[in-house]
Every structure is written in C-alpha cells, then in structure tokens.
C-alpha cells in the first residue's frame, strides 16, 4: 500500500505527463488544418495565406475577401510579414492553401511563360491613396513593356512626382502581380527593385523586355 503523498504525486505525474505523444500531436495537427480551412471557407478568416513555389523560392501569398493583398519574397521573414498583416489588417489570419489556389495557378502559368496578364482581384488596403494610383498605373503596363518612373508618376496624376512614385513602387505589397519590375530609369537603367535587381532583370528577360544577359543596369 502506497502512502498518501506518493499516491498524489503519482496521480500528478500521470495526469500532467508531458511525454511527447506523437499520435495525439498528429491528430491535433490534422484537426488544426481542418479548422483553418473551414475558417477560410466560411469567411471567418479576414486573411488567408499559403506558401507558393516559384523560381525565386517559396513566396508567401495572402488574400482577403477583396483579393490578393500581399506577395512576399522568401527573404522577407514569413513571421514578420504575418505579424504586419495582423496589426494592419486583422489578426484573423489562417493558413489555407485552397484560398490561394487561383493565385498559385496564375503565378505558375506566368513563370512557365504561359500567362501574360493576371486576372486576380487585388486588395489595395496596404497602400496609401497616392501609392495606389501609382500601382494601378503600373498594373496597366502590358507584359513585355516598360515605363520610366516619370511616366508612371505622370499617369498617376503627379507629373513631378517621380521620386515619390519610386518610393511607392519600392514598397509595392504585391510585386510580380503588380509589375513594378516594368518601371525603369529614364535612360533605360534598371533602377531599384524591392526583391533585388537580379530578380528585376530575370523578370524582364522572362517577358522579353530585356535581352538575356545583355540588358542595361
């Protein structure tokens, strides 16, 4: 017969055992994935996100009920991207691959050279009114075309705002889909790119706007 004290300790040990239970953890993970998918499908989530493969590595894509709101390159830390979305849009954010399927498919086609324009609805929430005008003007530059910063500023209604336009393009929350890579310096030099100048060159070559390996820069 066991002493009272020992018995209680034993009860405590059994009940609060922290031993890793792999089967239970797997079930919890499956249940969590199901609840995330359900929240996205039922409109309970304000933002859904998923990683999407690309030639640049895994991109982080996020959509709201309005449309694609964010595309982040691999080196932008996913945790901090999601934290920013939580504080600026809503903390109701879940991972839901199904919600990102249209965007994933269009990007895959684009990178395979089979798509020249994106049909995805866009959510401009993350951009200021001025940045929105600049980005909308940028979104109208066709595949294979380029404009200068000054031209984009002019089309956004601020002919003298090419520096401000450059800043707006530099903080484009939806690169690639909103093709800020199609905006160059007036002399034809590549200018900057939030995702790195090599990616800008690569995208322009993919679109035939720049001869492979021979472009200015």
């Amino acid at each position, binding site marked *: 017969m066991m002493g009272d004290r020992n018995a209680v300790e034993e009860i405590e040990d059994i*009940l609060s055992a922290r031993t890793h239970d792999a089967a*239970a953890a797997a079930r919890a993970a499956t249940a969590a994935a199901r609840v995330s998918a359900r*929240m996205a499908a039922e409109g309970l989530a304000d933002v859904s996100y998923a990683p999407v493969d690309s030639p640049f590595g895994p991109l982080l894509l996020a959509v709201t009920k309005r449309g694609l709101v964010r595309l982040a390159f691999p080196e932008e830390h996913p945790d901090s991207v999601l934290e920013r979305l939580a504080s600026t849009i809503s903390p109701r954010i879940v991972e839901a691959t199904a919600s990102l399927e249209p965007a994933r498919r269009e990007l895959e086609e684009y990178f395979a050279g089979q798509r020249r324009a994106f049909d995805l609805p866009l959510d401009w929430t993350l951009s200021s009114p001025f940045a929105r005008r600049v980005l909308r003007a940028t979104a109208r530059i066709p595949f294979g075309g380029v404009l200068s910063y000054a031209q984009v500023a002019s089309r956004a209604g601020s002919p003298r705002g090419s520096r401000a336009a450059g800043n707006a393009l530099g903080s484009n929350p939806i690169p690639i889909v909103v093709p800020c890579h199609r905006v160059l310096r007036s002399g034809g030099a590549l200018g900057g790119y939030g995702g790195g100048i090599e990616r800008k060159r690569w995208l322009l070559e993919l679109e035939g706007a720049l001869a492979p390996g021979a472009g200015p820069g």
Partner: protein
Amino acid sequence: MGASLPPFQRFLDSYRDDVWRLLRASVHSGEVDDCFQETFIAAMRAYPRLRPDSNLRAWVLTIAHRKALDAHRARVRRALPVADPASLDGRSSSEERTPPARDERLWEAVGELPARQRSAVVLRYLADMKHREIAQAIGCSEEAARRSLHEGLAKLRKVVIA
C-alpha cells in the same frame, strides 16, 4: 510596434496540442474532434476583441473546458450514460498508445468525477492552471476551486492505491 495579437494561425499552432490533450481527458473519444473545432471557431470569433496582453493559453483552455462541459450536458440530455468506461476517449484503443492499466483506471476515474471536480482536476493538471485561474474558468470562488480539486484528488487517490 506595441504589443499586438499574434496572427491567429500562430495562436492555433501554439495551443492545438494543449487543447487536444485537455479535450481528450475531458470528453469521449468521438467528441474530441468536434469540441476541438468548436473551441477554435469560438476563439476565432472573439479573437480581435481580446487584449494583446491576455493569457492566451488560459483563455483558449477555458473555452475548451466550456465546450467539454457542453458535450457532457448534451450527452446527459440524450440520456446516454455519463461515464461509459468502454467509450471513454481513445486512450483504451491500442492504436493510439497502450498505457499501463493503472493509468487507464485513473483516466476512467477522472471521467467519472462530478463535473466540478473533473473540471478542477483537468484544469489543474492538463491546463496547468493555478487555483485562481481554475476558479475563474469554472466561475466559483478560489476556495471552492481548491476544495473541488482536493475532493477530486481524494477520489482519484483511492483508485491509485486500490
């Protein structure tokens, strides 16, 4: 940037194991998944109104505990036996794990405790809550929570010693 709530997905990933364990100890095996879904759906609805400095773990485990009580009540309404050792969660199924018989008897005894004692034991040992937090979760005084825990443990002790 000031304190803000983590993205819900991170909250879900952080506490899904704790919620699963608490529910597995509190309701029948066939009810765990439904209670898990309902717990996080309820959490999602209330999430944006939560203060960023809240104890998220205690909060979600309190919701899980409430969903477990709902499941018990629904079962009583359906006039099914409250404690059916054969169906008391998945622990008895060998596919999950095969604990020693004494563990098994203990978990069965937890399921057979009166509601408040069961709540106190589960919240103390599966949610690591302090007496004050248990009292808040159950909606009773701290002293009553302490007493329920004590009474529950006394019954469980008989099972272990037997």
